[in-house]
């Protein structure tokens, strides 16, 4: 299971059986070039590329790039 925060919607969800960033983006209906996929971790959050594998218990933040401001 992974924990996902959708920053733009201020929403948190949990997903089972999502093994990679590509799979996660497909599930969330997001395009790789339209959001940052960030793994929260001690010592500094990390950006993930679409081919990166996800691990059980990962805490991921999705930051849409086109949020206005």
């Amino acid at each position: 299971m992974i924990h996902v925060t959708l920053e733009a919607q201020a929403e948190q969800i949990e997903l089972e059986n999502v093994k990679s960033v590509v799979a996660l983006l497909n599930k969330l209906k997001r395009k790789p070039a339209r959001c940052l996929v960030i793994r929260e971790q001690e010592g500094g959050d990390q950006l993930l590329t679409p081919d990166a594998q996800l691990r059980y218990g990962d805490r991921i933040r999705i930051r849409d790039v086109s949020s206005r401001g």
Partner: protein
Amino acid sequence: MKCRRCKEPAVVALPSHNSGFCGDCFFMYFSRQVDKAIRSHELFSREEPVLVAISGGKDSLALLLELHSQDYQVTGLFVDLGIPDSSDLARAKVEAFCAAHGLDLQVVETAAHGLAIPVVKKAVRRPICAVCGKVKRYYFNKVAMDQNFAALATGHTLDDEAGRLLANTLRWDGPYLSDQGPRLEAENGFARKVKPLFRLTEFETAVYCFLKGIDYHMSGCPYAQGASFPVLKEAMADLEEKRPGQMLSFYLSFLEKGKPAFTAMEKEQGADLAPCVECGYPTSAGTCGVCRIKAQVADAGGI
């Protein structure tokens, strides 16, 4: 995925460049794109003072920091529109960011000129975003002109530029097409306008901000309306996903092959500008748009 340059693990994938980069190599890539943009279109030199229009969003903050780190003489300008739950939050982020990086910042409060946007919104009938945009552009230009900045730089990215080009092309809008591009010359009371991020996407500025730890303003404006422009911007992004590199080539080809024709056409047919009779700002209508907004606010009892 491995970094194309140094083979360390990549943190960002860039399909349009068929590559991925680690953090350090991404910064190098980003700086080179800005440098190439500035030099290829002679946007400004290191001897010229440049005013950078700052909204508090990722693109303008990334631009200000990057130009500063490349030793350009930059000053940020934030126009505080007085919009509740938005302007003050953006301003606080901008002030903290500039203080942390030792960047020069100026702030103009439109309320001090009788133009707080909530007051304007009550007084005018037109959609507030069009009016608000006019007010912002007015003060960016005014400060650039009054203080003799050589150029006014904005954080427009390739997504903004290609999206706008698509919109203008769908209407074959001659005047807008003739004005589109990374450098617009100073003339008739308008400062030179430049867009040093035109080779970089919004995704890339978002990555830059993340990796630099820039805390930018993300929450939207309470008055934001769904405009047709973001739809086209999204359409362009969809096209880019299917054909990486298309967005940049669409824009660069326009600059090279399409724009000269529109510029020539506008030279013959363009409207004549003269200083506003009230404030001296260039206009084709006697009294400029902002002075007319001020009059409407005064009529509505705002000032």
